[in-house]
């Protein structure tokens, strides 16, 4: 049994007292980050990456810490969804649909515990799926040449643009902004500077961490200034917290189905957790039928999107680790983390550095269990933290972002660039232009161009080489379908709107 041997290797790394402590700290921080309104998983992981980097942790420890934060934030997101009706990030929107009505009906504690269990089930099954599927996919990925990789990157941009946004043109513009920024700096092949405008600071290119922190965290601060933090209303009071065994048993099949749906959605490059929780909720809603009472605060409506969301988050790690193509905004941020640590995701990661991959998988399993144990008894503490007012929280986030970026390079130029990205992020989000493709473009732009150029070197400039193998053709078809199909499907798959009081 390969998997068991590998898993034993992983646990031998992840179960040391030090990494275990990091996992607990990460889970705790992550839950807080996820629970605070306005600080979703992407924001939280983004502002912590520069700090982790400067702390000088080794690759495995940093990875354990940040994945615990990632999983913790996914857990924490549901607290503000259920109690305040404010989704911490987009996938959590589905949880508000039934979670908030359930909390208003005086069952806030039940909803929180039930969603915690559903998160656990989803994340656990997804991690098991990751263990089984990732090594297989890694083997397939060895067949990928530059032409296939080029098509794969294209597929990621197309599905991300097609499914996760409302307007294809805007998603395409966002991708181009990112790709265009990635081109700035010294060209790898010729060694000549490109598009720097003669600015010496730009010779190294634009650091993706600067862009991520600017687009996510600084832009968020501008949104809070615009709304004057009014949306941080105190919602439903939390009474006694008990474990609702009856609801957990009644929703077990819902959780299992939703985990399956979420995992599949998570694997699709670019689709990610939003689609996972959406599909999980919608499929359970149609199974339950009109009598199921979805939208009025039923336990199944809480369990389904949470299981789907967390399972998709795990599924999104499959393409990220094996192919280097992230499946969602947060996995894009995790990819940034890996690249900062000098780990190149891809099929070779599984053979060259098994300790990283299996250490990561083992720490995901550990983080999951820690989170479940931590969340049920400590939910009241996390709810207390929710009442940190926006006028303390957001300046704090800004300062942490500045210190993080400043400690990376010690240059005021990166800070200015970060503020610039914050302004850009504000306007893009105002205009309903998704910002995740920008990040993905900056992260993958260099690789995408390399793949194209290597393919052309191999074929001596013959463009048909890009469509010469069955895998490449399949990826091109999937890319075009992923971009075009949602235009027609949008009529039928309308996203439910958030409940309003």
């Amino acid at each position, binding site marked *: 049994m390969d998997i068991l041997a590998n898993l034993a290797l992983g646990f031998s790394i992840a179960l040391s007292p030090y990494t275990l402590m990091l996992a607990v700290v990460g889970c705790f921080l992550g839950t807080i980050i996820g629970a605070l309104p306005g600080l979703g998983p992407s924001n939280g992981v983004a502002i912590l990456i520069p700090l982790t980097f400067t702390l000088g942790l080794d690759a495995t420890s940093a990875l354990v810490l940040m994945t615990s934060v990632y999983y913790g934030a996914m857990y924490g997101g549901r607290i503000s969804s259920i109690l305040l009706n404010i989704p911490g990030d987009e996938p959590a929107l589905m949880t508000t649909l039934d979670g908030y009505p359930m909390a208003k009906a005086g069952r806030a504690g039940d909803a929180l515990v039930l969603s915690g269990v559903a998160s656990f089930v989803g994340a656990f099954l997804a991690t098991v799926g990751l263990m089984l599927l990732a090594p297989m996919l890694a083997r397939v990925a060895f067949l990928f040449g530059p032409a296939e990789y080029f098509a794969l990157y294209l597929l990621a941009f197309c599905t991300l643009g097609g499914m996760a946004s409302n307007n294809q043109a805007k998603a395409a513009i966002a991708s181009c902004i990112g790709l*265009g920024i990635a081109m700035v700096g010294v060209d790898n092949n010729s060694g000549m500077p490109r598009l720097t405008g003669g600015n010496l600071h730009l010779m190294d290119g634009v650091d993706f961490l600067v862009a991520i922190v600017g687009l996510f965290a600084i832009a968020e601060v501008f949104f809070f200034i615009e709304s004057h933090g009014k949306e941080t209303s105190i919602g439903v009071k939390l009474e006694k917290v008990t474990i609702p065994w009856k609801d957990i048993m009644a929703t077990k099949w819902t959780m299992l189905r939703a985990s399956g749906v979420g995992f599949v959605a998570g694997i699709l490059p670019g689709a990610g957790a939003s689609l996972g929780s959406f599909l999980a909720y919608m499929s359970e809603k149609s199974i339950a039928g009109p009598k199921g009472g979805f939208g009025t605060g039923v336990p199944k409506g809480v369990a389904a999107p949470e299981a789907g969301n967390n399972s998709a988050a795990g599924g999104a790690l499959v393409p990220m680790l094996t192919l280097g193509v992230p499946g969602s905004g947060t996995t894009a941020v995790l990819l940034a983390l890996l690249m900062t640590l000098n780990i190149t995701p891809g099929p070779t990661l599984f053979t060259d550095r098994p300790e990283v991959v299996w250490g990561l998988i083992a720490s995901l399993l550990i983080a999951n269990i820690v989170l479940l144990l931590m969340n049920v008894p400590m939910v009241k503490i996390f709810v207390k933290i929710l009442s940190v007012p926006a006028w*303390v929280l957001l300046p704090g986030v800004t300062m942490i972002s500045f210190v993080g970026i400043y400690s990376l390079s*010690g240059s005021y130029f990166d800070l200015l660039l970060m503020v610039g990205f914050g302004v850009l992020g504000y306007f893009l989000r105002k205009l309903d232009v998704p910002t995740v493709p920008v990040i993905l473009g900056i992260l993958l732009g260099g690789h995408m161009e390399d793949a194209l150029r290597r393919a052309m070197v191999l074929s001596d400039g013959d463009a048909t080489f890009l469509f010469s193998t069955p895998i490449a053709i399949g990826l091109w078809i999937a890319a075009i379908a992923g971009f075009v199909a949602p235009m027609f499907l949008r009529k039928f798959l309308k996203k439910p709107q958030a409940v309003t009081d």
Partner: protein
Amino acid sequence: MASDRIFGLVVLMGALAYMASATQIQTSFLADPVGPKAFPMLVGAVAAISALVLIFKPDPDPNWPVLRTFGSLGIAVIVLICYAYALKPLGFIIPTAITAAILSYQISPRPVPAIAAGAGLSVGLFVLFKFALGLGLIAFPHGWGG
């Protein structure tokens, strides 16, 4: 409608300027068939086409804030830019306290809590970063009490 058209126009201009500067990229003697120009040109072209689509098929306008809010956003940006320049020469504590207080005041306009938040965040974060995480921050400008 108008916002998307303006945005499309801005992107179109940007894309054309980007392509124009891409034509100026120097190629070296070690040329591969594609060269360093082709991919930026391709990206610029896709952006230009998408911008045209947006100009002809705009979405409804978003809810823009009132002019006053834009004013305070502008102030926030200026404060952050000053902060970026001040962080190195003036040390961590003073610029951070001022910036955090201004941002806090802009989110919730009450002077006393804002000043308290600024001071508290600045000292608290300094202690956290310097002593708990071991980052090399400077508290005050050089020459202030060593």
